[in-house]
């Protein structure tokens, strides 16, 4: 049953993404000032939203673990964070390429990119922490606390970097070229977002199954050693 859901989600998202690619390349006209590179926005923004949403959903899963002590909630949190981290990487890389074209440099301290980089660093630390703890319960506890800290902190990081950039104006990646996109151009963005959300859900479900397998292996190993 689960497998069917995963397959359905994956196929749907693949179809949606293909259709979107077609629209993005062949139907949407070029944006006035930025040219072709503008189209990267159709992946950059949905990837950013997907990963960000993921981190916060994972936080709720972590809080759920702390309340109920169900290791499946911890597995869910870890899976969601991992997939979100992958999408955050995509956000950073596509943003970097965008910056390369617009500003001529590979990295730019645009407030959104900078905040995302901090976010990325925090979650890399999250997985380092998980790898360093062997006991599943301790690992779940510590990851949950870190997840909560991270999500609260990210709000402050975002606000502070934004304010810093208003005081020290720097590069900003333009999403709305000159006040709002034309209606025909905006739609693929939201469809892509839907597709990425479905794709990430499929990946998360797969990862959760793997975590369950890992738990089964651990318990069987304990059982075997009991002989």
């Amino acid at each position, binding site marked *: 049953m689960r497998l069917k859901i995963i397959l359905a989600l994956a196929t749907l998202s693949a179809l949606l993404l293909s259709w979107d690619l077609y629209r993005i390349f062949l139907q949407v006209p070029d944006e006035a000032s930025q040219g072709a590179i503008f189209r990267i926005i159709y992946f950059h923004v949905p990837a950013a939203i997907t990963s960000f949403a993921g981190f916060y959903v994972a936080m709720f899963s972590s809080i759920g673990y702390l309340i109920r002590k169900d290791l499946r909630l911890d597995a869910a949190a870890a899976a969601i964070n991992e997939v979100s981290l992958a999408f955050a990487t995509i956000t950073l890389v596509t943003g970097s390429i965008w910056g390369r074209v617009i500003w001529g440099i590979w990295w730019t301290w645009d407030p959104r990119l900078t905040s995302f980089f901090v976010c990325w660093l*925090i979650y890399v*630390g999250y997985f380092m*922490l998980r790898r360093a703890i062997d006991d599943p319960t301790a690992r779940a*506890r510590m990851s949950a606390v870190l997840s909560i*800290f991270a999500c609260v*902190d990210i709000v402050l990081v975002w606000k*502070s970097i934004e*304010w810093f950039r208003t*005081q020290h104006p720097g590069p900003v990646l333009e999403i709305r070229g000159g006040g709002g996109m034309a209606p025909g151009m905006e739609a693929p963005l939201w469809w892509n977002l839907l597709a990425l959300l479905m794709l990430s859900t499929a990946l998360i479900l797969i990862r959760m199954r793997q975590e369950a397998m890992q738990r089964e292996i651990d318990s069987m190993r304990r059982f075997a050693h009991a002989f």
Partner: protein
Amino acid sequence: MSFLGQTLAIAAKDLRSEVRSKETVNASLSFALVILLLFSFAFDPDSDQVREIAGGLLWLVFAFAGTLILNRSFARELVNDCLDALIASPVSGAQLFLGKCLANYALLMIVECISLPIFAIFYNVRLPQRLALLFLVMLLGTWGLTVIGTLFSAMTVNLRLRELMLPTLVYPLLIPALMGAIQLSTVLIAGDTLGEQNLFWFRLLVAFDVIFTILSLGLVEIVLVG
């Protein structure tokens, strides 16, 4: 004993042990001096540039040297199962945490207060008339550093790579507090007036301190005990 009494007892214990051995403060101060030295190779200490990045330099020194103190905080309790004894004692997790925070805060402030004039001498920076405001920034910023650092010291105490994990986890989380402290320090050291714009950083520092103190006090029991 009251909540405060027990907390202060823990703080006093840590401070007493540190005063007797002086090992952590010395190590931290030496490290601060080394960093100040290394930075002097990174750029010409006499130029005007220093004025622009003075705040950043100062807080990088504080953050790096502070990590040594924060790392030791719970690590010193591992010997002879002292940590288990403390957790098993009637002292609540929050009291243990707060006591250690207060002790670490005092130690950090000592290191910072010694590093500041040395920094001013090395980099030819005239310390501002409004030293009181700079001191206030140090007080606020250091508390943020202490709270997060102490909580994560508790979290990483049992890990093999403790010395590596603590900075890796803590520095990204500290960015709002460090940014605020750096911005305010730079403005104050340069002798400029604190405009409307910079009040935001004060509010941010206070908000950071309040939010993370409450969050840490709430979650520390889970980290220590489970």
